[in-house]
């Protein structure tokens, strides 16, 4: 394609010269992950733009100097919050709409839907000014028996004050999922308040006499988990260097997991989800696999294996399955933590919620879930998704993995999800794009301080408006798959590479046959036909035009001879459907 490249304040825009099509390609500056400039060739200078959602745009610019300018501009743009798209577009234009957009989702309503607060769990004002924990939301739900001193004491014993609080309540079994960060237990430290807190959590589930404490980090040899080992090494190192650095070593040593001797009635469970650094490297490798030009089968499988990506996805899903089973089948409450309780914990809790609760498999439900487990509980969006040039070691595809888990589930349960793959891809895009204010900043407090609600729009109503294009035609709210808990098969061969995400270059080139799109179209058309038919049809006594009921159908076939012409298209149409359904599975 030959065309003109424009750089605006927010977008790189490419417009095709061909006057008939004038196809436009827009790339948001904040979506640009990197710009490479391979050596100049006689025909001009290449620019390869990698976006954060794994698309690649190749540009050939005739003048080398122009290419350098473009590269420099792209590298410099979007480095300040104020330059981000969501803040730079004029947000005051429609104030009412904006305010409305932020009230689209109501987290409190979601808690109420779960039946919280109730006589077991209550809301606590302890964190209303973010004093107990600045990365938690202002409103927290804790066991009714947890007194303010217990709450404060427990938070002091937890890394960054992230004390155990409720995230999901299962009404049938009264079991709950709670989340927190690791205890600062080190080698021997303990806190009575924290022990009381876990005790209170156990007691708020009347049917059980113990709780699970799920540590989502890999357990390294014996009883040491990842961080303890690291600390041990660190201590040894410290001692060698200088005995006087004890204080530092102690500070570093103050982390770990609950000691079963100190906490009554807990069962510790380790689930090995690797840390953010491992995940970052793993994702880079699977992106590389997706970009391989002509891999042999061996190359591809080897790449897939050595990336370890599917292994990590499986680990996250396994964690969710464990929690969901504990809650729904055993009726045991679960406390989930990793190190800081905002990455792996968020993954495990939200996957468990999707498995447990049909509501979270709808579009609105998934939005709420992300809003609750990720946005409100202080997942560090700006750091993890590199909204501004920051510490590269903080970047990690944490929510990518959650979205992929949902996708893997939707492959196994095609009728269980209200949304399709596109919805997940779009969510993924906006996590990175900064086009809306939802995912800016690292915590609720930060977002409040930045005044994002006043300055930006919310993504959710926008997605909701376009819901027709995100709908899964196979979804049926009353189908068995959509009821109750999902029990996915997590044997390794059930996991596939998400080509819609990591192999997009290819997907965009030849038009693929997608039965779901076809089915969606067909459904719409059928609806029209049915309506038309109902209009034509004499309404049989008693069998008022209800297309689909037995009466309706029989009436139709009886009255059909008179309406052969109008039925013809339906007949053709049904044929289409037939074949479609044959092929769909």
């Amino acid at each position, binding site marked *: 394609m030959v065309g003109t490249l424009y750089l605006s304040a927010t977008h790189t825009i490419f417009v095709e010269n061909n006057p008939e099509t004038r196809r436009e390609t827009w790339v948001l500056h904040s979506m640009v992950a990197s710009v490479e400039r391979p050596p100049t060739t006689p025909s001009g200078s290449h620019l390869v733009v990698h976006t954060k959602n794994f698309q690649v745009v190749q540009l050939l610019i005739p003048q080398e100097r122009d290419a350098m300018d473009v590269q420099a501009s792209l590298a410099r743009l979007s480095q300040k919050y104020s330059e981000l798209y969501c803040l730079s577009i004029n947000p005051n234009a429609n104030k009412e709409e904006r305010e409305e957009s932020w009230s689209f989702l109501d987290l409190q309503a979601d808690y109420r839907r779960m039946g919280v607060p109730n006589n077991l769990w209550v809301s606590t004002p302890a964190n209303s000014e973010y004093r107990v924990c600045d990365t938690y939301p202002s409103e927290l739900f804790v066991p009714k028996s947890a007194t303010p001193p217990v709450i404060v004491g427990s938070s002091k014993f937890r890394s960054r004050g992230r004390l155990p609080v409720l995230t999901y309540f299962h009404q049938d079994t009264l079991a709950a999922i709670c989340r927190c960060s690791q205890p600062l237990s080190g080698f021997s430290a303990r806190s009575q308040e924290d022990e009381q807190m876990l005790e209170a959590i156990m007691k708020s589930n009347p049917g059980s006499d113990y709780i699970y404490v799920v540590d989502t980090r890999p357990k390294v040899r014996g009883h040491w988990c990842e961080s303890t080992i690291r600390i041990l090494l660190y201590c040894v190192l410290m001692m060698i260097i200088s005995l006087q650095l004890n204080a530092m070593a102690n500070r570093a040593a103050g982390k770990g997991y609950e000691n079963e001797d100190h906490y009554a009635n807990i069962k510790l469970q380790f689930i090995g989800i690797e840390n953010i650094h491992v995940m970052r490297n793993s994702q880079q490798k699977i992106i590389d696999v997706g970009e391989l030009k002509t891999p042999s089968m061996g190359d591809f499988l080897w790449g897939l*294996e050595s990336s370890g990506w599917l*292994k990590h996805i499986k680990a996250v899903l396994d964690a969710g399955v464990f929690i969901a089973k504990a809650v729904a089948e055993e009726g045991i409450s679960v406390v989930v933590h990793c190190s800081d309780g905002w990455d792996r914990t968020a993954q495990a809790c939200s996957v468990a919620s999707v498995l447990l609760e049909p509501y979270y498999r709808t579009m609105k439900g998934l939005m709420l879930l992300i809003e609750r487990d990720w946005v409100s509980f202080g997942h560090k969006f700006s750091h993890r998704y590199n909204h501004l040039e920051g510490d590269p070691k903080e970047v990690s595809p944490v929510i990518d993995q959650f979205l992929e888990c949902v996708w893997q589930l939707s492959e196994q349960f095609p009728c269980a999800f209200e949304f399709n793959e596109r919805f997940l891809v779009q969510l993924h895009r906006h996590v990175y794009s900064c086009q809306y204010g939802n995912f800016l900043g690292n915590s609720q407090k930060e977002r409040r301080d930045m005044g994002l609600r006043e300055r930006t729009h919310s993504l959710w109503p926008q997605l909701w408006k376009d819901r027709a294009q995100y709908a899964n035609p196979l979804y049926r709210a009353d189908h068995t798959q959509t009821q109750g808990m999902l029990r996915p098969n997590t044997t390794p061969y059930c996991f596939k590479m998400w080509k819609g995400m990591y192999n997009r270059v290819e997907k965009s080139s030849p038009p693929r046959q997608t039965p779901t799109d076809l*089915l969606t179209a067909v459904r719409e058309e059928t609806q029209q036909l049915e309506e038309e038919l109902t209009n034509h049809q004499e309404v049989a006594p008693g069998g008022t035009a209800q297309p689909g009921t037995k009466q309706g159908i029989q009436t139709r076939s009886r009255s059909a001879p008179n309406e052969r012409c109008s039925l013809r298209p*339906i007949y053709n149409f049904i044929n289409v459907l037939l074949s479609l*359904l044959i092929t769909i599975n």
Partner: protein
Amino acid sequence: MEFAELIKTPRVDGVVLRRPFLPTVEGTLCLTGHHLILSSRQDNTEELWLLHANIDAIEKRFVGSLGTIIVKCKDLRVIQLDIPGMEECLNIASSIEVLSTLDSVSLMYPLFYRPMFQVIEDGWKSFLPEDAFKDLESMTEEWRLSDVNKDYSVCSSYPPLVAVPKDVDDDTLRKAAAFRHGGRFPVLSYYHKKNGMVMMRSGQPLTGTNGRRCKEDEKLINATLRAGKRGYIIDTRTVSVAQQAKARGGGFESEANYPQWRRIHKAIERSSILQESLIKLVEACNDQSHSMDRWLSKLEASNWQTHVKEILTTACLAAQCIDREGASVLVHGTEGTDSTLQVTSLAQIILDPACRTIQGFQALVEREWLQAGHPFQQRCSQSAYSNSKPRCEAPVFLLFLDCVWQILRQFPCSFQFSQHFLVLLFEHTYASQFGTFMGNSASERSVRELHPESHTLCLVMDIHCLQKVFIHLDLFHILSCYSLNSTWIKYILFLTHQHTIPHNDITIPHNDITIPHNDITIPHNDITIPHNDITIPHNDITIPHNDITIPHNDITIPHHDITVPHNDITVPHNDITIPHNDITIPHNDITIPHNDITNQIKSNQILFVTYTWLADVNASVAKCLCF
């Protein structure tokens, strides 16, 4: 020999059957001459009917007096039987071992099997070469049907009638046959209507080390070329393998003697390597460690998908030569009965939409595999679990089915059938009540005069397919009706519950696993379970009859015929056959899948379709292949 002599214990009570993903069943185990039957004698539980011929290997284990037999089937299922009593268990195990390894053709089940449904059409005559040739005649006059092989004297693995160029007489054919491996002289495999190009297949030329040549052979294949046109010879072996074949009297066409042909070598492996690959793949699928790394590395080590990719690439190349280059193609490997057939049949699926219908696919299998002399009996006598040393076994046909499945996955709207149809075929090649896949060639089947004795599969497949059409019809309504009434839902739930978790879950080569689960889109499948042919269907048919009245009187519909089954258990087969009459529709009227692709093809898009595939296969098949 009487079967009774081989059955030491015909019946054991209190046997527990365990299958992955299915509830356990406790009941009575019976051994008959051909079947292992387990029935709980309750109405609502499914019975297990397993052909002895389907048993690949068994393992015995004892815990106290409780014996366990693990039965590994050729269709890759693994089931476990807990048998109380050590003696009974040993007796059962040894009987199964003997019964499952009987070699004698005269004892095979297809010769005993009498269908309980009314045979309304002789399936053995459904896809005769004469009929196929009639179609060809309507398109071109350059070909004739030769009966040079009428007593199988020229080539024992060819059918009595073969299509050859009109200008070539039978004498030339005989001489050319002497120059080709196994007497498999080049014959017509496919005529491409769009540009009149053809695909032929043969055995390797017997050039030997001293470069023999055969004028008649050259004349024969040159007769298929238009003036001034060049053709392609696709040799499915690599150059070095083809070179080595010279030492054993084989070889390939030299440029000097075939100046009008360009030779291309591909690398489809020999059958023994494919068998090893299957064994490794099945082992990977049954791995209990549940480790992702192990699964992927075992999958890679099995090389199965490498074979799939190579076969697909070769088939795409053939299709491209014919369609894009407008050149005729000759395909051969060594014998011309394995990789050659994979390539020719896949190329037809790529090029010809008719092959993507149920009827068309059956015709293709009949033409390109059964009549073309693929040695089914040799290739499928054992499968992946067998402990005995493989002789000629190889999953050649299974690989072909896998390739079709890959295409189906990429072009889900272009096929009339679903993957279950492919699985059904796979199962029947290894063990079946029908004689379709018995023997190694048309000549063997006719010498044994199977025809009057046994029945062929195609007819039954029609019935199965019809049921599926019904079910899809209903499914369609489920999905498209807005005011769904509860009967529909009940019905669909019934179907799903009834048929969830196809036993071939374990079949993983098609990794159905992802889908089946408890997923509504794929209910039917298990109706296909062949062994008890009649017992199952009645359930499925019972319900629709009211509802099926539905859509359009154009289908003058079967509902009358179907009304009966209800509470009957044995009757249904009668009723099922009848719809067959009325509902020839699926094949005639439901031209859609057909249309679908024809549309594409008419608008120059066949190029595109082939092209796409080629692009895919060349560029990224690795990523597209599903596992």
